[in-house]
């Protein structure tokens, strides 16, 4: 049953090293897996987990005749070998991702920044693929200066654990230097999977790079403060320091449904753009339930069938 501790847990409490709750049958706790990539060649198998109903044209040698004798139905038992896949996980390191800063609701009610959540997700995904036997690269992307992009290729889960502990110790401070990462311009070769974690406010480099990958996934990460405006102070001015000098009084932003309509319209537009390049769009906030998040991840791997 899924009514465990996860039922009320949120993404803000995601532990990158915890993959127990993932339901996909392809994710195993042993190290015998050879990767998340399935080979095209099929061979007969005795294991009932690879069984499926017979489809006209299937090789006869794959039919389980004993099962036919028992059940009077043709069942094929086939197995496809797995192969290690190349995965890149990109999350943005920008001022907009380093928000909320903690001043919005006061120190007592501080909520995690988008960067923190993005880091947790990136390390979690990286750990997942390592356990599957894939080769996962972690990219920290600077939208303003792509020359300063940072990259890290973990070899084993302990590398990720060590990295996570360091970042946690620095309280997800973007200003401190990250260990294990090397500065390198964006050079992404042909990939099997590309994960992009961003708030979508800066650029959409994802739509260009995803063409090199067989599968893409855009995780649209917003803060819950951007989804709900009740926290805004009436007489406080809210602005964005880039682009046009737009300033709004809190009471004016809260008035009417204009903000929510704009937000909904923008998200829909972004979703259509992402889906337009054959990728998956996953909206997330720090309040997204972990169960929901795991369902998203499961859905990514169920496509392997």
């Amino acid at each position, binding site marked *: 049953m899924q009514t465990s501790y996860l039922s009320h847990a949120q993404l803000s409490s995601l532990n990158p090293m915890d993959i127990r709750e993932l339901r996909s049958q392809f994710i195993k706790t042993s190290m015998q897996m050879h990767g998340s990539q399935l080979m095209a060649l099929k061979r007969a198998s005795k294991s009932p987990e690879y069984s499926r109903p017979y489809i006209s044209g299937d090789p006869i040698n794959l039919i389980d005749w004993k099962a036919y004798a028992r059940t009077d139905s043709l069942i094929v038992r086939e197995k496809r070998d797995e192969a290690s896949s190349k995965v890149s996980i990109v999350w943005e390191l920008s001022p907009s991702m380093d928000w909320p800063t903690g001043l919005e609701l006061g120190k007592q009610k501080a909520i995690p920044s988008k960067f923190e959540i993005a880091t947790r997700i990136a390390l979690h995904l990286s750990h997942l693929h390592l356990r599957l036997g894939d080769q996962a690269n972690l990219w920290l992307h600077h939208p303003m200066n792509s020359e300063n992009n940072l990259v890290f290729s973990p070899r084993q889960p302990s590398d990720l654990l060590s990295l996570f502990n360091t970042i946690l110790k620095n309280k997800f401070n973007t200003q401190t230097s990250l260990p294990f990462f090397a500065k390198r311009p964006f050079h992404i070769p042909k990939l099997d999977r590309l994960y992009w974690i961003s*708030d979508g406010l800066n650029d959409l480099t994802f739509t260009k790079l995803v063409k090199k990958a067989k599968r893409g996934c855009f995780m649209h990460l917003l803060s819950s403060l951007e989804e709900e405006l009740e926290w805004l102070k009436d*007489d406080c001015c*809210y602005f964005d320091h880039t682009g046009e000098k737009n300033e709004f009084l809190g009471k*004016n932003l809260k008035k009417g449904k204009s903000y929510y309509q704009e*937000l909904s319209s923008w998200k829909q537009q972004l979703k259509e753009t992402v889906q337009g390049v054959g990728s998956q769009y996953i909206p997330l906030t720090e309040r997204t339930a972990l169960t929901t998040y795991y369902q998203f991840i499961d859905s990514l791997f169920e496509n392997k069938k």
Partner: protein
Amino acid sequence: MTQSFFNFQFSIPGMVGFLLALTACFLWWLIRIRQQRMEFPILRILRPRPSYKPKLALLKPPLIPFLSFLAIALSILIFLLKPKVVSIEPIDATGSKVHLFIDMSPSISGKTSLEEYIQEVSQIWLQLIQTKHITLSTSHSDEIWNADNQQDLEKKLYNLNFHRSGASLGSIIAKQWKIINGVDRLIVISDKDAHSWKNFNWAYLQKDTDLWFNPVGENFLKQSNFYFVKAKHLSPPASTVMDWDISIARKGSHNEASGVLEVSLSDQVLASVPWTMNSDQKELTLRVSWPSTSTPSFEGSPPPLVWKIKPNEQDAMLIDNEFRTSLKGMEQNIILVAESGGEQSLEGPSHALQASLKILGIVPERFEWVSSNKLKAESYPLWILFIGEHDDPSPYCPASLVSHRLEPKLIAKPVRTWLIPYVSNKKSFQNICWCYHKLQVAPYSGSTMPPFCQEVYDRNSLAVVLKSIGAKQLGGEVGSEFSALAWTGTDEKSLLSTLAFTIPIRPSRAFGITHSQLPLIVKGLLAQSGFFADGADQLREVWPRISDNVKNKVWFGETLDQTETLKYKLSNVPAGESLMKEIEKKHLPPHWQNSQEVSKAIPNQKKVQENPLPWIYALLGIILLASVAELIWQIRKQRSVKASSLLILMGVFLAQEKNCYAEINLAILSNRNHGGAAGLELEVSSRTSLKISKSPIQFANFNDRLLEEPWLWAQSIESIRDEKGHLKQQVGRWIRRGGLLIIQNSKAPNELETLTKKGFDYQKIPAHWRPIPPDHELMRSFYLLDALPTCDGSIWHGFMFDNRLAILAVPYELLSTLLDSRIRNQCTEPPTRERNLRIFINTLMVALTTDYKKDQIHMREILKRLQ
């Protein structure tokens, strides 16, 4: 402690500390009021549209339009101000003009004697004499005069004395003001009598002159004033006893009063009645009687009866103690003109009537004929004229009566005439018709009988003719004009009324009048004629109470004969003057407190009226210049509007005022002259709120001018079709634009189909010929018609185009029967004129409004009229 606290002294460190704390508080306050700002990155993407109003941007306006606007706004503001027209300028006291108005109304006589009043006026005049231009006037007439010396002034006022008629100062001074033509100061010498000052807006005069008021009789002793309220004659005219009811009243004290009421005729006392008025009694009515035989006889018009109140106590106003009425009774104030019956006088038609009049106490003055103008119409309130079968009925229809109507007097006296047929035959009726026409209708005194009177041959035809010339039915049954006893009419200006009988007024079995009924009939007729009017009513006509001297004919420059002049001079004092009611000081013009202040009456300054026109022209010039400056600025800024702006500007200057009006013309296409449409115009305008032109637009051949009207009446189908039988192109275009074509004499439906075969796109817009159905708008647009008249089996057709009636085919000549030429309808059973008229009006409504009743916008008005 308290002392040391109040003796606190500042030390330098303390001062510095205080200033620092103050600065800190100020900085804290600045930080406090500083707007808190916070980053919200998502706003770089989202553009919420706030619902609050945008900020008002204050921009620097362009200089020239701003100055133009300012100049125009200021000019308009000045236009809206009330113009102040009066300024005071010093003048030479000796050159100023002063006018002295002296009120001589009856109310003053109750407060001061004539001698004292003249002395007071004389004193004021003496103090004003140093000014060179001093003019005088009284309330007697509009005469403006100068006095050479004091004696002249006093003598003139003595001769004038107080007048008996009232004085409404407002109307009298307004009349004199036009003659004076402006003075620097106007001084009114009068009392505070409410009747005199009533309706006098003296404040209006103050803008043109300095108006001062000199009150008189301020210190008079308030005594009782006795006066007449009314006098009513009670006796019938031929009564042997004169009975009068006289009402007297008093104003002032409430003590018991007594006295004598005396009536006299030419200084001969006819009756004297003592009276007593109890305390708190205000009014008293006395019956005064004397034998008619004691009334002396007079040749010509008798003098008036003079009624006098002689109270035993002192009376404030003596002038209103006399009251004049005309002598009543024993007067032959009815004239009867009838041909003598000769030896059979007792059987004559007038004998029975005379006997009836005598029964009623009236002895008429009888003449066999009247051949001269000596008998004035107003001398006799009733003329009974028996008109026989003479070729020349003038002696029985006197010219003085005709001239009385044609030359009415300003104050007319009612004169009644009875025209009775001497015998019941054609000639008598014709003469009655002629005489009635002369007395009531004819614009001049003609000597030939009008043609319609020559057509009278009996009683019924007389009734028809008299009704047609405006007479009203008297007697008989309602709605049956032939049963009328008489026909009556009254000329409003001269008050000459005429009663033309259709039967001889004498006992007759043929007419159902018995000897006993005749006096009753005559009495009823006299009452109907107003002959038995209230005595007081007649009194007012002859010896009126004139409330305002300006109402006297003399003020309008009319010359009166001696009798009339005397009547006006001796007119009765109006009750308002007798009441001696005063108004408060605050409602009066500024006046002197005592006679010493009279010297202030010499003006040393005068009011000058400034002409505001130069200011108005200057402001208009400013507005014009500012407008032109702004226009030039606009043209220089936006070159594209240059041409159009100049054209508009030129158009404004070149535009001329032109009256616009709308007229409904009858457009007729016919080769026959139909004459005018005066009769039709009269009928349409009297029945509806529409007015059609009296002169139709008529052409024998087709003309484009005909198509400028909303409808076109074609006499026949031939005139509007071409050789192939199709509708002419221009007519088709006109119909498509909204015109209504009415084709008369249309009896062949096949021709109609051919007529509209071309020229109408039946595919796009539905169009078809059909008989006019009973629910068509033509049947209910104004009158509710049940059916349209057919003509020898032919019915009405309508061409429905674009959901409206575009062509109406009438089987006969509808319009010709209604126009002035009145061509006879050729149908076997022609419809009546009334029916044609109603159809015409309905057609007119359809032509102008189509089916307006379907339009909901008219529903409110329709419902309002239905209610």
